[in-house]
Every structure is written in C-alpha cells, then in structure tokens.
C-alpha cells in the first residue's frame, strides 16, 4: 500500500475532513437559510471575515472568550442586518449589495488590523484565545472511532448540532414555515398576512448568525490568528455546497462535507510531487465541476417533468 493511500485511510484523515468541513458547514447553513426565503445571501464571505477579525481582536484585548463569542456573533448578525436594510428597505439589488458588503469586510478588517496590530498581513502580534477542544469521555476510548469523533473544537460539534437546529427551525417552527412560504410563493404568503420583508430580514439575520460562527471558528479554532482575506472563498464555496444540497438540512451538510473532503485531500496530497499551485486550485476547480454537473442533472430533471406535464 502506498504511503499516500495509507494516510488517506487513517483516522487522522477523517478527523481532518471534519475539521476543514466546519467553517464550510456553518457558511453553507447560512446560505441555505437565506436561499429558502428567496433572498440568497452571497455575503457570507464578508460576514465570516468580520466575525473572524472581531473575535480575535476582542479576545486579544479583553482576554474573554465569552465576550469574543458574543461580539463576533453580534458583528455577523449586524452584517446580516445591514444587508437586509439595504436590500429590503432601500431596495438595493441583493447580489450587488452583498458584493459591496464583501468588499467592505475585506477593507475594514485590514484597516482595523493595521490600526490595532500595525500589520496588514496577520494579527500575530495580538495573542488571541481559541475555543477549546472537547474530549468526549467513553467515546474517546473507542479505537479509531474515538480518534475520529473525539477531540474536535467545540464549534465543530456545534456545527453538527446546527444541522439539526437548521432542520428543526425550518420544518418544525412557524418561523421556518414562513421562511419557506415566502421563498416559494411570496404573494401567497402575503395574502395570508405574512410580512414578507420581516421574514426575509429574519432569515438574513440567521444567516449572519451561522456565518459568524464559521468566521469565529476560522480565526479562533482552526488557527489562532486573523490574516487578511483568510476566508479565501469559503463563503462562495458554501453557496455551491448549499445549492448542491438543494438547501435541505441534510443535503447542505453533505454538500459541505463533499467540499471538506476535497479540501482535506488537497492538504494530504501536498507532500507529493505536484506543484502546489494545482493543489491550491483543486477545491475551486472541483466546485466548478460539481456545480456544473448538478445543474446539468437539475435541468434534465426539469425537462422530463415538463415533458410529462405536456402529455
């Protein structure tokens, strides 16, 4: 067995998959929730970035993990609110507004990074706290399975719980029902007295909430510093992940997991003699291919359906 195959079949590899899937999963849930209401949020990239940044800054200056968590989440929800304000109240195109918001996030984080850390690259001069890892008793004793499941970051477990939360929210609460109704048929929803804008705003706020956790995980779990544009397109890959999963909870999880696996493979094959540029481009390339295949299948299915209707 080749050493590569051996390392890919190891529990560490599966552990790595879960690790790199975490931020994608948070972001993908954020995208999916907004997409269900019909106003897809492509600003997750920016939301993650500001939360990642403010988490590090707040924890660095206050020394409190709780404040960093609250601050990071509030900033993320605030970004969602800002998008909602411009899209719903001031009637801006949501895609352009989100592009502007991503730009804003990229600029403002580097701006403040320079002000606080006198560096435009990373926040390494500020000692950031990290969210703790969790050793699960009993399970961690189990060979292989224990190595895979136990010892992850708290936020990773919360990401997995978030999938269930997302399911509960959309299918078991009235808010979720309204979000789906607004997304599927806004006129019908309005006719039964649902305030469309308010529901869309809620879904954008929720989207900001999940995105902020993804950002916090990146800077205070995955690594322990902030670096400029550290989200590196994860907010956009998340759009693909949510689309692949049809914005369903389980589907979104599988979509994020798929890109997590690709990312983990990219990390694991880097010792091989492949130019690193190819390895770095792999997740983005795979996203293009996966999204293309997905839309081909979708359009075929639609075609068959419409043909059936004609008969």
């Amino acid at each position, binding site marked *: 067995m080749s050493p590569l195959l051996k390392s890919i079949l190891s529990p560490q590899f599966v552990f790595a998959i879960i690790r790199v899937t975490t931020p994608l999963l948070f972001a993908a849930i954020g995208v999916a929730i907004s997409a269900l209401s019909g106003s897809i949020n492509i600003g997750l990239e920016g939301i993650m970035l500001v939360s990642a940044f403010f988490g590090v800054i707040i924890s660095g200056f206050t020394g409190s993990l709780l404040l960093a968590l609250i601050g990071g989440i509030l900033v993320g929800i605030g970004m969602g609110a800002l998008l909602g304000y411009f899209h719903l109240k001031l*009637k801006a195109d949501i895609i352009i507004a989100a592009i502007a918001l991503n*730009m804003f996030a990229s*600029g403002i984080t*580097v701006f403040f990074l320079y002000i606080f850390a006198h560096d*435009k690259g990373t926040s390494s001069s500020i000692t950031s706290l990290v969210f703790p890892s969790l050793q699960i008793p009993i399970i961690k004793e189990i060979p292989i399975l224990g190595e895979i499941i136990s010892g992850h970051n708290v936020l990773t477990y919360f990401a997995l719980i978030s999938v269930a939360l997302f399911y509960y929210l959309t299918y078991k609460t009235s808010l979720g029902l309204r979000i789906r109704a607004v997304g599927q048929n806004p006129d019908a929803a309005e006719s039964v007295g649902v305030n469309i804008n308010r529901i869309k705003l809620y879904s954008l706020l929720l989207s900001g909430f999940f995105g902020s956790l993804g950002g916090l995980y990146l800077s205070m779990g995955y690594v322990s510093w902030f670096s400029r544009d550290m989200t590196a397109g994860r907010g956009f*890959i998340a759009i693909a992940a949510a689309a692949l999963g049809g914005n369903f909870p389980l589907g979104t999880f599988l979509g994020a997991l798929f890109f997590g696996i690709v990312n983990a493979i990219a990390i694991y094959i880097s010792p091989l003699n492949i*130019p690193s*540029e190819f390895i770095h*481009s792999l997740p983005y390339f795979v996203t293009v291919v996966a999204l293309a295949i997905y839309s081909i299948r*979708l359009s075929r299915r639609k075609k068959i359906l419409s043909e059936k209707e004609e008969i």
Partner: protein
Amino acid sequence: MGKFILKYFNLIRAVIAILIGIIIGVCIIYIISKEPGVSLKSLFLGPLLSKSRFGNFIETASPIIFCGLAIAIPFQAGQFNIGAEGALFIGAVVGTAFGVSTNMPAFLHIPLVLLVAGLTGAFWGSIPGFLKAKWNTSELVISLMLNYVAYFIGLYLINFHFRDKAAGYLVSYKLPETAWLIQFIPGTRIHIGVIISLGFAVLIYYFLYHTTLGYEIRTSGFNINFARFGGINVFKVIIIAQVIGGFIAAIGGMTEVMGVHRRFNWQLSPGYGWDGVVVAIIGRNNPLLIIPSSLFLAYLRVGGKILNLLSDIPAEMITVIQSIIILLITAEAFLAGWKYRITVREAKAKEVGRT
C-alpha cells in the same frame, strides 16, 4: 431647478453617494489620524503633486476602464459574471508567455500578443457563459471560483515555465522590445494602453447602443422573457456577452504588462476586476460614464497609496469608501423620496400653469 434635478437625477444621486462616501472617509481620518491635515492632503491632492504621481493616476485608470467595460457588458445582459479579475490574470499570463517565446517585428508582435491574451480571456469568460446558457448554472459562483483557478494556474505557468530566475523574485522573463507599448509622456509611465482603453470605451458604447447585438444584449438584460418572445437568441446573447467581457478584461491586463512593467510581475491578483465592478455600478453600465468613474476611482486609489506611505492611515480605507458608495448607488430607495417630492411639485406647477 426641479426639472434639471429630475433630468439628471441618476447622476446627481451618484454624486451625492460619492460625497457621502468621501465625507465618511474624511471623518475616519479625523478620528484616527494623528495628523489629519497631512493625511487629507496626501489623499486628495497627492496624485496632483508630482508628475510621476499624476502619471500613476492615469496609468491606474486604464486597466480599471477595461475591467469596468468587461463587467458592464455581462451586467447589461443581466449576467452577474464577476470573472474580470480571473480573465485579466490568466490572459496576461498566457499573453506574456506568448510574447516572451516569439520573435517578430513590432507591428505584428503587439497586436498578436494582445490577441492571444484577449482570446484566453474570452475562453475564460465563455466557461461561465456556456454553463449558464446551457444549464442555468450560476455564473456568479462559477466566475468567482474561476478567479481562484486562474490565479493558481497563472502562477504555476509563470513559476514553472516562464520564470526569470535571475530576478530573485517571482516574475516572468522580460518581454522583447517588439512587444512593448510605448510610454509617450516623459517622466511618467503613461502608455499607449491608456489610449486603447479610451478607444474601447467608445467602441463598446457604439456596440451596445447602436448595433443589433448590443440591442439584443440590453433587451435580454432588461427582460429575458420579453427578449425570448421577441425572437432574440438568448442562448447566444448570454454567452457572447461574457466572452466579450473576458476578452476586454484580458486586453486590459495585457496592456498593463506591456506598457508598465514589461514583464509579468503580479504575485497577487491585482484587484482591477473588483474595481471594474465598482466603476460599472457607479457608471450604471454605460461605457462612456465608466471613463469618469474609473478616473475617479483611480484617483482615490493612488491617493490612498500616497496616504498609506505618508501618513498613519492604511490604503484599505479606499475599499471601505468604495463599498459604501456602491451600497448607496444601488439602493434604489436612496433619495427616492426626494425625487418623488420634486416630481409632485413639478406636476403641480404644471397644472397651476395650465389653469
């Protein structure tokens, strides 16, 4: 007065948005800078204070104009293709590769290098274009992902095949002199590419507003179903708009390489594609308005760089200002109440005049 405002409402609105963005910038400088006077002077007057800086301002505007056009055409067709950044990068890489490995007289070499770069960019734009037209794949996500792919493939090509190892850092071999664009104002690096960009703006204006294909592009963007019922080949339009966009973006990148650096020296993606999004929105996708928008943004960018050098404020403040400007300009309801009041007043005045 009221009539004047109504006639030029969009322009006035854009100017107000820009002013608000700048006022916010000034406020930030006052709050953060220890020497606000010096900072403000370097930001707002910096680009005018020396010949070479003025040259920087003009030469920065050129690729931004190209990218603004490259974004505006798909936007006019209703396609959110924001892949100008990737098309520019990969086009410049392949064009450079072609330029350094061929030898011919300048009158052939310059257009051929530009053509190779442009075709590469066109190919790059055709990928999201084709996927969208054929299977309705999100051109937004695809073009974004391709920006990253272009960046890494481009770096690979330069690093492994065209790297000038004598240079000490990651740059390509120098282009032969037959592929240089002339710098025609002594003391600056203002090059022929600047003029080419202006020519393209006029050309694209004519194309969009005075040709059949241009009309089809605008109609498809306005209402795709209407276009379809009107007999427009929407499939073709969606692809062509993005192909032309990629072509122009790549030409923009290549002229910068041929006119300013004379070799490929971007280790990071230069960000012109994103500036293109900004100026396309400020200029409402109108090629002629993209020229002043690009000059404005280039002025801010160069001012921001000088600000960065001479004071304690980082250049990223410009990114913050421009994002605020875009948000305000795209917000349709921004100042809509004002417009409404003026419209009502004008209408009343008209009625009174009649009776």
